[in-house]
């Protein structure tokens, strides 16, 4: 294997791994903040117990999310130095803004929150977790703006053999970036919701600390449904903008080969990349794809054949990840609706209580393949239309990359296993005795 392939593999592995932890940070931070706010406003100690319980899981997850993020920043320089030279003027600044504006804030206040239970007034302490939640999500904004610029470069001029900044405001406010950001955090927030729902359901089903977990369940049920609905409707806008911003990605997502009008959407399809057609096409909904792009069932949609073969992304991977993401999103919506519907009588819903813990991995998978779609669908470009991926890689020895990739596999699998083991153990253990309210009935119901 050569440096290019190894570097791509390494970036994929380290990004996937990093993104196993990021969405929970983005989503759960708000839920913990809401639970603590409920405690501060009502004085109900059970909310405090719930805050500490989910806060502990949050911290176990947070630690690994932070340290694996450093890997990604370093890799642009270590493995993608040609890319870094080419885009540093814009892309590098966005990363630097992220560190200055947001990363400092979340990393500093996470310590304040964890160590400050006794040292700060309840209001100030609650403020600390809100700062962590908001800062994490602002941090995500700058990262997404940087990624959106790779997907859809704007506000630049080509000068001195590199892309130089021409309009900072255009870069940070472009529609592509805003949509990508909203869709990413939406997915992360509903993941946080399912995490709390699943764990609360697990405890309620076993009659452990029911009155505490009923509270967290209710908060999460509302939260999760809101963002499931939001994510579906908002997601449509992301597909729509691809029609103009990345038509090739859109065509690959739908495995749509020939530019045409009145394009249907096939409920069942399977791409055949070699013969540039679909091996299977069944159950068409007439004009739907044209409609989704143009709000007009007769509109023209560009097909994959409009660009030469070497400028197309891998069709099967793009197509499958899109389909799977949408299917999982719909599944999540129905489960969220169910949980919302029964949130007030949740103890009497054994089936729902049994299903919900099993749902926790689903939004994880949806988040991962959503990113896979965004990144694989961008290929063969590292910066869409400006720089091909193979031109971005560092001129370094493949042995170095192979060694680091091996080390990442080893260290990351061990750390991932330990981290999920700890989350699993502490999630099942329930609130620690010393965090329980002294007065209310929190024993077996």
């Amino acid at each position: 294997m050569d440096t290019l392939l190894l570097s791509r593999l390494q970036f994929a592995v380290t990004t996937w791994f990093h993104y196993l932890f990021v969405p929970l940070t983005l989503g759960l931070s708000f839920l913990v903040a809401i639970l603590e706010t409920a405690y501060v406003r009502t004085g109900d100690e059970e909310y405090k117990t719930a805050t500490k319980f989910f806060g502990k899981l949050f911290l176990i997850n947070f630690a690994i999310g932070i340290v694996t993020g450093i890997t990604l920043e370093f890799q642009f320089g270590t493995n993608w130095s040609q890319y870094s030279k080419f885009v540093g003027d814009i892309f590098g600044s966005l990363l630097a803004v992220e560190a200055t504006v947001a990363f400092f804030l979340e990393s500093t206040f996470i310590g304040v929150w964890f160590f400050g239970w006794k040292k700060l007034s309840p209001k100030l302490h609650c403020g600390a977790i809100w700062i962590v939640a908001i800062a994490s999500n602002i941090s995500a904004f700058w990262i997404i703006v940087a990624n959106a610029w790779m997907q859809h470069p704007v506000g630049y001029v080509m000068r001195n053999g590199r892309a130089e900044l021409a309009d900072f405001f255009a870069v940070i406010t472009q529609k592509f970036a805003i949509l990508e950001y909203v869709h990413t955090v939406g997915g992360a927030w509903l993941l946080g919701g399912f995490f709390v729902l699943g764990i609360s359901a697990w405890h309620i089903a076993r009659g452990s600390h029911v009155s505490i977990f009923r509270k967290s369940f209710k908060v999460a049920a509302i939260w999760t449904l809101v963002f499931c609905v939001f994510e579906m409707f908002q997601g449509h806008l992301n597909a729509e903008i691809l029609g103009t911003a990345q038509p090739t990605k859109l065509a690959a997502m739908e495995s749509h080969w020939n530019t045409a009008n009145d394009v249907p959407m096939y409920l069942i399809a399977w791409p055949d990349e070699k013969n540039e057609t679909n091996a299977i096409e069944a159950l068409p909904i007439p004009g739907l794809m044209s409609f989704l792009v143009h709000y007009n069932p007769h509109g023209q949609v560009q097909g994959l054949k409009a660009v030469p073969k070497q400028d197309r992304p891998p069709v099967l991977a793009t197509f499958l990840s899109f389909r799977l993401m949408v299917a999982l999103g719909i599944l999540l919506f129905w489960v969220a609706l169910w949980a919302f519907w029964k949130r007030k009588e949740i103890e009497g819903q054994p089936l729902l209580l049994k299903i919900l813990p099993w749902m926790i991995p689903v939004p994880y998978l949806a988040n991962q393949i959503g990113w896979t779609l965004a990144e694989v669908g961008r290929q063969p470009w590292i910066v869409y239309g400006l720089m091909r991926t193979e031109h971005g890689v560092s001129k370094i020895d493949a042995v170095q990359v192979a060694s680091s990739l091996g080390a990442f596999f080893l260290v990351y699998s061990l750390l991932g296993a330990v981290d999920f083991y700890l989350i699993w153990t502490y999630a099942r253990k329930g609130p620690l005795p010393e965090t329980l309210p002294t007065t209310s009935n929190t024993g077996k119901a």
Partner: protein
Amino acid sequence: MLETIWFSIWGVAWAVYFMLDGFDLGMGTLYPFLTRTDTEKRIFINAIGPFWDGNEVWLITAGGVTFAAFPLAYATMFSGLYTPLMMLLFALILRGVAFEFRGKVDSVGWRKVWDFCIVFGSFVPALLLGVAFANLFAGIPVDKEGINHGNLLTLLNPYGLVGGVFFVVMFLHHGALWLVAKTRDTLQIRAAQAASKLWVVTLLVAVAFLVHTWFATRLWQNLLTRPVFLALPLLAVVGLVASRVFLLKGRFWPAWGASSLFIVMATLFGVAGMFPNIIASSLDPAASVTAFNAASSPLTLKIMLGVVLVFLPVVIAYQTWVYVHFSDPVTEKSLSEGPSY
């Protein structure tokens, strides 16, 4: 002018990073040797508890500043120092999770694993950063394409190794002083004894490093062209001496502050001595990456200057607040009363 300003910000970001992460890297290397029981270990670890994460962001910022202001330097440095940077990364990853994981399972073996990760993950970055910076001071064999013709062993030349040892002992001393300020009773006495011994070692290694710098680099010659910058090494010496004086007088926070001054000034001495080189090429001076040939566009430099001027003071303000607010000593009692690792 913009390039010079950004070169200064770049240097200051590294200096602040070494000053802040320096004491927690030093503590992380030192604590098993100064403690006997698990409670003692936890007291030392919790002494850096609320701070280390925010400190490490200065590394991200220093990296980010390099990327944003000097993309060519970022690309050359990070790809050229691939293996040491990956080692640094793995060390920091293991260390970061170790703090969180260590207390989560009640087993001696479990804690030993994470104690090892903290020590390994603290010692290796200190050493590698020292080796890397000494090599940057002396120059590395990069060609005009920005490709490094050396490898890990070329970096481990005598001057690089002295630089590595210098960083390690400087951070150990800094960490010991932090522990003196943050603990009480037996542990404080032990930390003070360690700090006292480490001061002597630091002094000797610092002198060796400075002398070696005269022969191995052009730092001194470069500084002598602008003698006002000789204030930097002078202030470093003042800081190192003052840390000793304050420690003997029992004024522990000022002792740590003086050590901070020492680290900052020692770093700035090196950085100022490099100017305008960021990566001096030992093959061909024309291949050197400088603040001028590596800089971003004036527009980016201006916008980023605005961002830094607005937000860094805010960062410094709230980090200072955290340092002040969490400055009281960690003891067995405080561990049992409040949240802790």
